[in-house]
């Protein structure tokens, strides 16, 4: 079992880093877009709210695999020159952004209306209230759901490797190794270890964050 790992170490290592990069970039996209959509959903304008709601309902209910097909094969056929990395990161990021937006929104509502009203009456503008009063507190309460989303994102990143994008991530490399050695069990076992390391690390990191930013009441 161990000899498969030592012999094909470069494959497993590069696959591990590809998954890490995919997740890291998608995380940035998800947080950025998710924050924007959440801001739309709580904006005082009804049409912005509807737009945000539409985004969330569409991207939350569509399978990631369909998104990957649309963003890669579909756009390429339509004449848009999009690479597998861009398509993969955009799909995973935009897909997760819908969940991030919902998590942030429920975090914002946990802040309490009184604080927002107080801030507005102190003369802060709406964007400033959001940035200085609401979001810092909301981010604290959304750490646990963000942890769940990050773990789900690590798991979902495996879909990118097996879909037609064929980015060489952990799962793709495990398939390459298993095709070359015929040791399906061993190569998939090491891939599982890779994924469990990533999900385990995410769990630990978010636990530490949660402790650090916990509100002392």
């Amino acid at each position, binding site marked *: 079992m161990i000899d498969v790992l030592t012999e094909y170490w470069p494959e497993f290592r590069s696959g591990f880093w590809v998954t890490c990069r995919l997740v890291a970039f998608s995380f940035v996209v998800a947080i950025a877009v998710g924050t924007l959509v959440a801001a739309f959903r709580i904006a005082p304008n009804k049409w912005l709210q509807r737009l945000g709601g539409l985004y969330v309902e569409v991207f939350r209910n569509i399978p*990631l695999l369909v998104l990957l097909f649309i963003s890669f094969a579909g756009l390429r056929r339509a004449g848009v020159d999009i690479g597998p990395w861009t398509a993969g990161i955009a799909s995973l990021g935009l897909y997760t952004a819908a969940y991030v937006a919902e998590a942030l929104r429920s975090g914002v509502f946990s802040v309490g209306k009184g604080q927002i009203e107080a801030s507005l009456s102190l003369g802060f503008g709406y964007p400033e209230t959001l940035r200085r009063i609401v979001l810092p507190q909301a981010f604290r309460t959304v750490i646990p759901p963000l942890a769940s989303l990050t773990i789900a994102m690590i*798991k979902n990143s495996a879909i990118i490797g097996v879909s037609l994008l064929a980015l060489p991530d952990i799962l793709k490399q495990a398939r390459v190794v298993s095709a070359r050695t015929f040791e399906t069990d061993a190569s998939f076992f090491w891939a599982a270890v890779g994924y469990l390391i990533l999900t385990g690390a995410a769990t630990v990191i978010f636990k530490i964050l949660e402790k650090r930013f916990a509100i002392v009441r």
Partner: protein
Amino acid sequence: MNYLFSPDNWEWLWTGNNFRFILEGFLINLEIAFVSIIFALIVGLGLALLRLSTIKPVSWVAGAWVDIFRNLPLIFLILYFALGLPSSWKKAWEDAVPTWAPEAFQSGLVLGAFLGLILYNSAVLAEIMRAGILSLPKGQGEAASALGMTRVQALRYVILPQGLRRMVPATVSQLITLNKDTTLVSIIAITEVMRRGRIVTSSGFFQEVTAPILQVFIFIGLLFVIVNYSLSRLSRRLEIRERKITGTKLKRVGGLEDQVAIDPT
């Protein structure tokens, strides 16, 4: 934009029986989801009870099992079972599956898909159910044993009916995730909606009308959005009703994708 909405690019939908072909594929996805959720609920309940067992080694093993399968990518499990299962198992499945079952279920590869879907979702559902049971006040179990109920009786008549009811909304939102995840079985060559979408787009099916990939998959995505949106509405309604009856906030289950439907504010 012009490309997206140009009627020429949507003509494929009304040509031949493309529309029916895709819709039938989508039905296969729903069937796979339905069968998987039934078995995953049964196995998940078993795992949750084992994890709550008072015998330490049993609960430890069940806990490790649940945590491992919950933290692995579903597509990884499906691929592994599709590639790694001995062919005699697949053969046995092909012989065992009843003839009235849908056509897509007849292939031996479906066994791998089902094993992956059920193992993953039963682990997730076990965690959901455990959270539901643990969210009950301790007094419930104590009162049951004070009334002279055995542990099994207490579970059967007091704990499970209350604990599981609380987790119905979370289970429905897991069903949404499962519904989306059924598209993953296309990777192991089961002709459900994704495969059928690719068949429609590939040249030579209806030569005179080309079906652009973008439009075909937007249509398929729309089917999922419609069904899953209705399910999420249902989940939210159940959640509100449950909140009114029990007046409690549900416990959060870590690692789930759809946290929001579980914990809306």
